[in-house]
């Protein structure tokens, strides 16, 4: 940068546009010292310096100096731009500079999380819930299966019995069911097996035989397996009793070799 000297260094100002360039260089050198200052504050400091120079130049102009010379002298009176910059830099600690940047990163991450996480969790639960209504988890493929469609409305949930299977070798039957909240965004209950009693044709109650619940938030899958059946058996009785909801159904068994 061209050094500004009282009285003698003003030649640069008298060349076309040179004054502007010198002033720009002055501000650039000042601002170059401010490592931990954001753009807004840099603009403000620059405006402040420019206003200061302009005020001083105006006074000089009123004192009889011509405009270019007044600006040169005002700028010169500011002192060494590097020293000014260093002096200003001491006022700006890097702590808040980095804090500000960290908060900005955190803020961006929070926005992304808000936009993606909550709805993603809810939507996946909703998806499982909706999926269960039409296309529940497939039953055990090793068993002979019969598809049924029995839906029992409970308090806020629905119990859906969708398959009855037979293991001819073991002479046992299996019942697959699931529960889902009627509101697709709601949670499925997991204690419905307490309310279920399955009875075979011999009248043996298989309450709570190997009941199992797999919870996926939006839907809870369960099954009863190992229900003893005898050759010739063609159905099971399914009873549900909970919170005043009483239902009884005949579940037809699939055709199996042990059938009479």
């Amino acid at each position, binding site marked *: 940068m061209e050094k500004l000297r009282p009285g003698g260094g003003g030649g640069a100002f008298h060349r076309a546009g040179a004054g502007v360039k010198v002033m720009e260089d002055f501000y650039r050198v000042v601002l170059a010292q401010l490592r931990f200052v*954001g753009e*807004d*504050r840099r*603009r*403000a400091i620059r405006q402040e310096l420019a206003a200061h120079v302009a005020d001083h130049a105006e006074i000089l102009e009123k004192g009889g100096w011509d405009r270019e010379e007044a600006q040169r002298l005002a700028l010169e009176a500011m002192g060494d731009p590097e020293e000014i910059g260093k002096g200003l830099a001491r006022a700006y600690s890097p702590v*808040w*500079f980095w*804090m*500000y940047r960290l*908060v*900005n990163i*955190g*803020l961006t991450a*929070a*926005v992304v*999380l*808000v936009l993606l*996480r*909550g*709805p993603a*969790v*809810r939507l996946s639960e909703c998806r499982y819930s909706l999926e269960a209504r039409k296309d529940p988890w497939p039953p055990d493929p090793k068993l002979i299966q019969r598809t049924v469609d029995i839906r029992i409305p*409970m*308090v*806020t*949930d629905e119990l859906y019995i969708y398959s009855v299977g037979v293991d001819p070798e073991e002479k046992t039957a299996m019942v697959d069911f699931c*529960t889902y*909240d009627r509101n697709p965004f*709601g*949670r*499925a*209950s*997991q*204690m*419905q097996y307490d309310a279920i009693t399955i009875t075979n044709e011999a009248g043996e109650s298989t309450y709570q035989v190997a009941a199992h619940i797999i919870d996926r938030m939006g839907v809870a899958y369960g099954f009863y397996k190992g229900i003893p059946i005898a050759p010739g058996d063609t159905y099971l009785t399914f009873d549900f009793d*909970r*919170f*005043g909801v009483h239902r009884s159904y005949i579940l037809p068994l699939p055709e199996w070799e042990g059938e009479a």
Partner: protein
Amino acid sequence: MRQKRILTRRQKTLRRGAVMAVLLALVVFMGDYGFTPRYAIRMAEESVDCGKTEVVQKLGAAPVEHTPWNRLYVSANERAVLFTSAEYHFSHGWEDRDGGCVDCVEDTPVHGAIYKLTSTWTEEATPDDPTGRKYDEVWYLYGRVDDPRGVSIQGAITYSEEWDGEISGIWAEQTSSREEWVRKGGYSYFVFPLYTRTDWKQGDGPEGGRFYFQLKLLDAEGNVLYEDQDLGGTGTTMSK
């Protein structure tokens, strides 16, 4: 023209930090973060599908050692009494731990159930106790009295030495009188610790046998209005 006010970095950081806090609160809310124990009650309602309940009694923290931050609640509606063990986790907030429920729809003078709260931790193994596993347990008896003649509840834990054997004796018993019950919405609710045992180890109970839970509702003359010899129940175990 009025110059735009430039905020200091401190002001901007604090302002944006506040916005971030609000957004994070929204994140945890949408991600099902339980800000209060009531959220755990809502979860328990969903898990038993009993519908919305109102809190009947707050039991405070579980009276067992080595438990996480928890609170116990009994809440109810027309059809059910719900026992919720709410537990706080930093990452998820308040969550329920296997809440218990009594179906109150059936027309009986009293509806009751057991809720067993277990806390377990490990101490140094000894020849007497090779696993070093210790337990604290509280067995709550809770439910609803529908018969206005009922003035006291007698709860008892009986036991058999063998799994399907005869009842060998009474392990513990406790009585709760009407003055201790909570009246709400035209019903009387009761909850009391039927039995508490602390610092016990495996094998301290009837080994190979089992417990049974009895409930009797008595009138002012001591007549039994209702009796259940094999009350059902649920429970939860908290590990240190």
